[in-house]
């Protein structure tokens, strides 16, 4: 594990946002996932495409049921029955994951792409020591490494998330929530993956611990220059942490912008509603929710799925699904309102 040198590199070359010259480390194209339920087909991911450069942090926001976690699971190829990945590709560092054999995919998990699931801290095995679980993870990927080397790798990972090496010999119940969450991050970075997906890593933690955990993720991400996808619905956390924000609605990406563009000038009406519903210190006592309810994926409205709640809905929104189009400046938005501005690609 060579975190020290990687740290220097990351310090000097942080990927610029609109890097046209660099090849992105992660490329997701036309990903589609459908759940075949007894009540009908639910399209949980519909034509999702985006890419991400090394060292970038992308925030994925949306209401519950908008497909954020499904996207993470699909990228890991961990969608279970009755769900199916219907199409699309996920390419990490030149390797296309969807075409891999099951055994190769198993090896790619954790070494190329790591996933820290929601409530990860509850996924630690209560009856084995933390160290054992970490060694397990390494062993299943790197055969033939000496015990000492594996041990050192684990200790190094623990240190890089600010945990005492003594944690290696502890059980999960001896740790606090924030410490358990950091153990999960340590496991995630054991093999220095190119892409780390964090699914609501701090939703059960209080603000101080939350800040500690996010600062830990930030630091290890810079050390190994990985791309990070942060899934969540806390826009405040996004403002503090990510470079880019992607907004999902009913299984589709509706906008991808830099965090500054998103907070100062959101384009998509749903993103606008999301931003204006945020609390701040100036508008005390004003509660502005988003009117209406999120649509059921089983009965999606025709055309743009947001049109029943949208103040700008037109006849065209009701009949035609808007595509995700690039606007000048590199941001992407899926809304008929911006058709004139969209670049013809």
């Amino acid at each position: 594990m060579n975190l020290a040198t990687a740290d220097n590199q990351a310090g000097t070359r942080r990927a610029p946002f609109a890097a046209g010259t660099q090849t992105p480390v992660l490329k997701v194209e036309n990903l589609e996932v459908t759940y075949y339920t007894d009540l009908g087909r639910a399209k949980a991911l519909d034509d999702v495409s985006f890419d991400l450069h090394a060292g970038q942090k992308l925030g994925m926001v949306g209401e519950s049921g908008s497909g954020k976690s499904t996207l993470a699971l699909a990228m890991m190829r961990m969608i279970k029955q009755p769900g199916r990945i219907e199409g699309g590709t996920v390419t990490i560092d030149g390797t296309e994951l969807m075409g891999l054999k099951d055994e190769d995919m198993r090896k790619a998990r954790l070494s190329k792409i790591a996933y820290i699931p929601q409530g990860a801290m509850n996924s630690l095995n209560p009856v084995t020591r933390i160290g054992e679980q970490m060694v397990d993870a390494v062993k299943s990927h790197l055969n033939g490494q000496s015990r000492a080397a594996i041990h050192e790798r684990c200790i190094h990972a623990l240190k890089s998330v600010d945990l005492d090496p003594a944690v290696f010999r502890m059980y999960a119940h001896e740790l606090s929530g924030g410490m358990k969450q950091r153990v999960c991050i340590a496991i995630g970075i054991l093999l220095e993956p190119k892409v780390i997906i964090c699914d609501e890593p701090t939703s059960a933690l209080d603000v101080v611990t939350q800040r500690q955990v996010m600062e830990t993720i930030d630091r290890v991400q810079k050390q190994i220059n990985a791309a990070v996808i942060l899934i969540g619905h806390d826009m405040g956390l996004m403002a503090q942490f990510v470079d880019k924000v992607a907004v999902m609605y009913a299984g589709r990406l509706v906008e991808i912008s830099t965090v500054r563009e998103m907070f100062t000038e959101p384009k998509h009406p749903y993103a606008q509603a999301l931003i204006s519903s945020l609390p701040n210190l100036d508008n005390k006592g004003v509660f502005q929710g988003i009117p209406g309810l999120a649509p059921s994926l089983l009965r999606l409205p025709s055309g743009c799925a947001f049109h029943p709640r949208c103040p700008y809905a037109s006849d065209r929104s009701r009949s035609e699904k808007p595509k995700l189009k690039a606007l000048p400046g590199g941001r992407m938005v899926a809304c008929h309102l911006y058709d004139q501005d969209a670049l013809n690609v």
Partner: protein
Amino acid sequence: MSNLLELRNVTKVYSRGVINANATIALQDISLTLKEDEPTIMTVAGESGSGKTTLAMLLLGFITPTTGEILYRGKNITTLRGKDKLAYRREVQAVFQDPFAVFNPFYTVDHLLTVPIKQFKLARTKAEARKKMEEALTAVGLRPEDVLGRFPHQLSGGQRQRINVARALLLKPRLLIADEPVSMVDASLRANILETLRNLQRDHGVSIIYITHDLTTAYHIAKSIIVLYRGGVMEAGDVDTVIKEPQHPYTKLLVDSIPWPDLNRRWGEQQIKVREGGGRSHGCPFMSRCPAAMEICKTQPPLYELNSHHTASCYLYSQQPEVVRERLSAFLPS
């Protein structure tokens, strides 16, 4: 002016082991008064382990204080019997954190609402019960035809949480204890639930004790705030003053760590010291993490008066007049 609820020097100690080797002070010497005729929203804030849920459990009568007493309308709640007990049970209601865990998945929503109606004999006929249910649901912004007769799994988290509020409302409570009611709910639905709670206080005269670790929502809904850390009151007062101008180092850390959805307001640079486990010493509970810790902090600091609506328990303000702990409520505007 009579008091609805009064806490007198309440301390709760959890002890493990026969010889009392391991005692955790969950709540230390809290005195608090809620007036009967001034419905208010009071926030109790603090991180996990600060004793905020212990306080909720004490107020609901699920656990009894180790020392001190809790009076409801002047009567000690542990010795309430008969009619008084029933009235207390009806008038003090709770909304809990997890809207997914409080429903029995085998019953429809109606069950959750009819049980209290039967229990407290609120309605004489089925039609009257139905009408009461519909009124309560409408009051929290739900359409009765949308939710009645449906099973919990058919409803969203926000809908479920509002049904919980409706259930509490049905009983016409005087005091609602809301323990992290929005922490598991989508950001876009939070606004709706908070608004429901505020309307409950404004229109129905219900006092609310809002327990949370989220100072953003606390700021928006509450009038006064008490900041707890490891069972002790760190700072208390008017919510605007405490959150905009925090004085206690712990409150400063908390406010500094709020992820504001504002690009010009970043997280502070201040390094966070890790909390040490185990029991606490006799001094200021925050001492081990405090950047301004002094020698004197090894003894418990009293409350100091900062102004008429602001008090903090920290030796940094030792030139200010001291406040006896029993007078805490005087600093909380209603």
